[in-house]
């Protein structure tokens, strides 16, 4: 009787203790080995399963994010005409982007900015700080403050881990209990499916409306913290709203402009910001000829 009760207690307690001691993955390994050595294969499996369960529930690490980000970035570059290699433009984009990233909620990771050789109007972010802007969108921008807000929007997608959320969600839908690279390493098909699904969401369907609006609001805040005129983003979004024809392809991956403009105006109102006039049109004009 005692033995049965004790076994039940062990069944309930072991996963809990492992969860509580989850600071040490080694503890899990040692316990698993001990159970195996003592001939209790069932207990060993439970301990192993607990570790897997814990790992599946925990967020993706930065190293793992780098692998996922690079894979998605490959898709972005391949689908949008490759990278437009213009050293002066690339440097300028990285300076503005880095200035904005310094004030974001996740300034401790490196952010990388590049131009896509595409006339369509769009910008993307992949996990681990990969940020892309098309030549088409750059051609619509009139000053550095507008560019800073666009980059702020993309930086917000990275800092808030919006794409990683898509990955976590697809992982659940696919019934995959482990998101880790180790699992993907052993199962390249699973990794491919997860990346393909995330790239489809990012490039074809667009992120959820609330994520885009959060990107707008936070991007606006990040750019304003640097000192750019907070009303510049409203001016850009208003200009984009008037576009017609093929350029409207961009619209299907983002919420409608009136909603976005309203959301940004609300941020400005809540923060009590006034137009500062810092647009830096001349500095932007110097690289405009390189687009």
């Amino acid at each position, binding site marked *: 009787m005692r033995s049965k009760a004790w076994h039940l207690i062990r069944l309930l307690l072991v996963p809990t203790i492992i969860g509580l001691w*989850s600071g040490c993955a080694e503890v899990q390994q040692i316990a698993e080995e001990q159970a195996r050595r003592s001939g209790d294969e069932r207990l060993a499996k439970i301990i192993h399963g607990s570790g*897997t369960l814990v790992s599946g529930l925990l*967020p993706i690490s*930065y190293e793992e994010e780098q692998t996922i980000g690079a*894979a998605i970035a490959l898709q972005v570059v391949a689908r949008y005409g490759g990278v437009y290699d213009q050293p002066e433009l690339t440097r300028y984009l990285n300076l503005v982007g880095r*200035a904005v990233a310094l*004030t974001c909620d*996740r*300034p401790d990771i490196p952010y990388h900015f590049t131009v896509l050789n595409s006339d369509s109007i769009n910008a993307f972010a992949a996990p681990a700080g990969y940020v892309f802007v098309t030549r088409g969108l750059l051609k619509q921008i009139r000053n550095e403050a507008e560019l800073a807000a666009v980059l702020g929007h993309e930086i917000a997608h990275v800092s808030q881990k919006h794409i990683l959320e898509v990955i976590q969600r697809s992982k659940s839908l696919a019934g995959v209990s482990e998101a880790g690279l180790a699992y993907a390493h052993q199962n390249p098909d699973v990794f491919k499916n997860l990346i393909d699904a995330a790239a489809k969401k990012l490039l074809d369907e667009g992120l959820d409306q609330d994520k885009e609006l959060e990107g707008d609001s936070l991007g606006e805040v990040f750019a304003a913290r640097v000192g750019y005129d907070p009303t510049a983003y409203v001016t850009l979004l208003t200009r984009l709203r008037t576009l017609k024809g093929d350029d409207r392809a961009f619209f299907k991956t983002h919420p409608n402009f009136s909603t976005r403009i309203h959301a940004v105006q609300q941020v400005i109102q809540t923060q009590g910001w006034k137009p500062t006039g810092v647009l830096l049109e001349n500095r932007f004009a110097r690289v405009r000829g390189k687009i």
Partner: protein
Amino acid sequence: MKRPSRLDAPLVTLLLLSLYLLTSVALAETVFVQSKTAKLRSGKTSLDSVVADLKFGESLEVLGKEGNWLEVQTTRGAKGWIFAGKTTPTKPTVGEDDVLAKLGKSFRRTEAGDVTASAGARGLDKVSEGYANRVGITQQHRDAIDRMAAYRISDQEVEDFLKQGRLGEYAQ
């Protein structure tokens, strides 16, 4: 009517003192550094000398405000001025999630060793390179991602860029 005992006086004093301290703490305004690079200066312009380099998320007690600058005191006791745009009234939450992420990685490592060792120096590692092979990404595009990840700009270069544009604390 029962007289208060001798013990009541110190007790009341202690309660009043605690109340005073609690009120003082509650009234003191605290802000947090919301920038990877932030400087505490001796005055309220970017030309004033740097008293200390502040860390992202560091808490600062506000002593006063003038224009876009806050007079603050750090937890180490250093006093000076900081550009208000580099602070936030709410503590940045960054970091908490990353601890869990590292933990998750440590668990997943036990499953099949560290497969991310090559990540960091280049944009692509074994797994993303394997993905590129499976979906047929050209070498040109792979090189573009590697170059993108390797592109470096120092914090000082960004600071000089801000200064040149008279942005934030460099505004005149």
